[in-house]
C-alpha cells in the first residue's frame, strides 16, 4: 500500500495566548512507495512524531490530505485505516499477558471481520512466531526484557495484518547491543511481511542502516527525501550534510574565486563555472587524503588509531567548529613529529553551500 502525503500541514495553537501557531508539519508533499521501509529522520521537535500521528489518524491535519493507495483516509478514524503502530514505550498493557496483548486488536473486530477463537489463536501464534516470542506467550510484560517487549509490540501491531506499519522511535529504549540486533530484526520482519513500514528516529545511523528511503526533516519542513546513500552523497543543504554521517562532516568558512574553492588563502579544489561568493565548504571525513604537498595545511592535534582506519584530529582557523576529523586508511602513516599535517581532498566528498541560504551549490558533474 503506497502512502501519499498531499500538501499536509499541522498547526498547533500556541501555548501562550498571543503567540503565533506552532507549525509542526509544514506542507509535506511526498509519496511513500508500496512495500518499502521508510525512516523519518530529524532532530527532536522536527515534527516527525506528529507526521506519524497524522498518518495513523491519532491527529487530524490542519490542511492537506493523506492517501493510502487510492483511498482518501484524511478524516478516517484510526481503526478504519488499517494501520498497526508500535509506540515508543511499547504501550503494552501491563495487566494482560503477552498472548492477550497480541490478541487485543483482534477482539476489537466487529461484524463481518469478527474472528472465531481458533482463528484468533492461530493469528496470534503466527505473529508471535514471526517475531520469535512464541515461547513467551503466557508471561506478563513486566517479566520480559526490553527487547522482548519490543517484539511483543511489533507482533501486536502486525496481528491484524495492517496495510501500513508505523514505528515510533522503535529502538530508543534499548541498549546499544540490542539496538543493532533489533534493527536487523525489524528489517527482516518487514521483508518477510512486505508491509509498507514507516519508522521515526532521531538517530541517523539507525535510519541509514535499514531504510529503503529516508525522509530528513527539520522544524516541520521537509529537507530531503531519497535512498540513504543518495542523501548522504548528495545532501540538499548544509543541515542534511551535517545531520548525516559519523563522524560528522567538517565545515569550513570559504569562498569561491575564479573557479577555485578557497579556504583562507589555500586553493583547495577547482570547481569550474561557479559564481564568486562566500560559501560553506563541507568535507566528509573520508574526503581527506594525506599528501605532503596538499593545499590544506592543518595544525595536528592527535592521531587516533581505530584498527581498520586512522582518525586524524586537527585544527584549522577557518573551521566552523572545534576540530577536524579526517578518516584515512590505517596503512597511511601520519608523521607525528611535525605539528602540521597537509591534505588534499576528494572532489566528490566536498560539498559547497551558500553562506546565506545554506542551500547546496552544485559544481562539476554534481
Amino acid at each position: 500500500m503506497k502512502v501519499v502525503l498531499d500538501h499536509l500541514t499541522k498547526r498547533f495553537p500556541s501555548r501562550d495566548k498571543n503567540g503565533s501557531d506552532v507549525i509542526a508539519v509544514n506542507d509535506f508533499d511526498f509519496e511513500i512507495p508500496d512495500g518499502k521501509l521508510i525512516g523519518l529522520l530529524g532532530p527532536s521537535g522536527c515534527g516527525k512524531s506528529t507526521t506519524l500521528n497524522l498518518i495513523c489518524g491519532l491527529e487530524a491535519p490542519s490542511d492537506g490530505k493523506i492517501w493510502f493507495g487510492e483511498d482518501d483516509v484524511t478524516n478516517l478514524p484510526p481503526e478504519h485505516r488499517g494501520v498497526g503502530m508500535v509506540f515508543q514505550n511499547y504501550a503494552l498493557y501491563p495487566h494482560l499477558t503477552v498472548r492477550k496483548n497480541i490478541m487485543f486488536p483482534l477482539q476489537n473486530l466487529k461484524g463481518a471481520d469478527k474472528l472465531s477463537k481458533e482463528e484468533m489463536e492461530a493469528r496470534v501464534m503466527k505473529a508471535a512466531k514471526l517475531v520469535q516470542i512464541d515461547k513467551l506467550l503466557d508471561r506478563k510484560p513486566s517479566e520480559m526484557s526490553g527487547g522482548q517487549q519490543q517484539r511483543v509490540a511489533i507482533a501486536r501491531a502486525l496481528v491484524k495484518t495492517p496495510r501500513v506499519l508505523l514505528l515510533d522511535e522503535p529502538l530508543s529504549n534499548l541498549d546499544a547491543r540490542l539496538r543493532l540486533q533489533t534493527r536487523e530484526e525489524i528489517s527482516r520482519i518487514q521483508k518477510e511481511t512486505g508491509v509498507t513500514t514507516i519508522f521515526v528516529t532521531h538517530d541517523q545511523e539507525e535510519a541509514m542502516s535499514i531504510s529503503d528511503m529516508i525522509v530528513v526533516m527539520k522544524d516541520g519542513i521537509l529537507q530531503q527525501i531519497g535512498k540513504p546513500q543518495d542523501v548522504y552523497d548528495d545532501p540538499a543543504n548544509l543541515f542534511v550534510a551535517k545531520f548525516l554521517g559519523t563522524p560528522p562532516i567538517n565545515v569550513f568558512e570559504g569562498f569561491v574565486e575564479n573557479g577555485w574553492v578557497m579556504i583562507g588563502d589555500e586553493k583547495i579544489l577547482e570547481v569550474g563555472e561557479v559564481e564568486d561568493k562566500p560559501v560553506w565548504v563541507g568535507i566528509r571525513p573520508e574526503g581527506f587524503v594525506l599528501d605532503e604537498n596538499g593545499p590544506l595545511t592543518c595544525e595536528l592535534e592527535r592521531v587516533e588509531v581505530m584498527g581498520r582506519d586512522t582518525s586524524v584530529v586537527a585544527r584549522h582557523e577557518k573551521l566552523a567548529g572545534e576540530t577536524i576529523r579526517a578518516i584515512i586508511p590505517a596503512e597511511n602513516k601520519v608523521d607525528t613529529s611535525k605539528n602540521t599535517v597537509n591534505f588534499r581532498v576528494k572532489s566528490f566528498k566536498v560539498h559547497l553551500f551558500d553562506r546565506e541560504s545554506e542551500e547546496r551549490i552544485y559544481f562539476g558533474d554534481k
Partner: protein
Amino acid sequence: MSQVNDQKTLDQISRAAKTRKTILNVVIYVFLALWGLIVLFPFYWMLLTSIKSYSSYNAEYIPKFFTLSPTLQNYFDAFTTVDLGRYFLNTIIFTVATTALMVVVITLAAFAFARLEFKGKNAAFGIFLSLMMIPTELVVITNFVTITNWDMRNTFWGLILPSVTSVFYIYLLKENFEQIPDELYKAAKVDGTSDMKYLLKVMIPICKPTMVTIVILKVIECWNSYVWPRLITDDAKYFLVSNGIQEIRENGFGRENIPAMMAAVMVISIPLIILFLIFHKKIMEGVSRGGTKG
C-alpha cells in the same frame, strides 16, 4: 480490516465518526455543567437569600431566583443579634494558634526523623506511623475527660492542645526533608552551621511548597472543625463559627429568620472560599498528594 476501497463508504465512515464525536462532546459538557450547577446552586441560594429582606423572603411562597431590592440588613442583623463577630474572632485565634503550634511541633519531629541519627529512631518512627490508623472517635472520649479534669473547658488551650500534632503531616514533611541531598548538610556542617540553623535557613526554605500546603490544609481543617469545639465549649464566648452556626440555627434569630441565617452562613464561608480561589492549585495538589478529609 475491511479493504473497502469505495471512497463513498470511506467518506461516510469519516462523517459518522465526526458526528459521533460531536454528539459525545455535547453530552459530556451537558453532564459536567449539570454537576457544576448542583455544586454551585447551594452557594447561589445562600447569597441570594442573604440579600433578600426578611419580609420579602417570607412573602414568597414560590421563591424567586433573583431579587430586585437587595439589602445588607441581614448582614447587619447577623453581627448584632448574635455574636457572630466574636465567633469569627475566636475561630481566627483558634486557627492561627493551632496551625502555628502544629508547624513548630511537626517541623521539629520531621527534622529529627529525616536528618538526625539517634538510638531508637526507627522504632519511634514505626510507632508514629501506626498511630496514623487511630480514629479520632476513639480518643476523643478520654481527651474530653482530660481537658475537663485540667479545668480547660471553655478556654482556648482546651480547644487547641489536642490538635497540635498530626502524624500524617510529620510523615509528609519528613519525606520532603529527606529529598534534600546529603551534600547540603555536609557542606553546612563543614561551615560550622548548627542543626537548628540548618533547619531554619536551608531545609524550611527548600521545603516551603510542602509547608505551605500543610498550613493551608490545617487552616481549612481548623476553620471547619465542629465536633471537638462542641464538646469542649458550652459558653458562647468561646464558640467557633461552626458552633455559632448551630447556635444560630437553634436559638439565634428565631427559626424563621432564614435570610439572616444565610447572611451568617455567607460570612462564615467567604474566608475559605477566598483562600481557595487564591490557592486552588496548591490546595488540590496537596489534597491529592495523600490527604483524606479531616
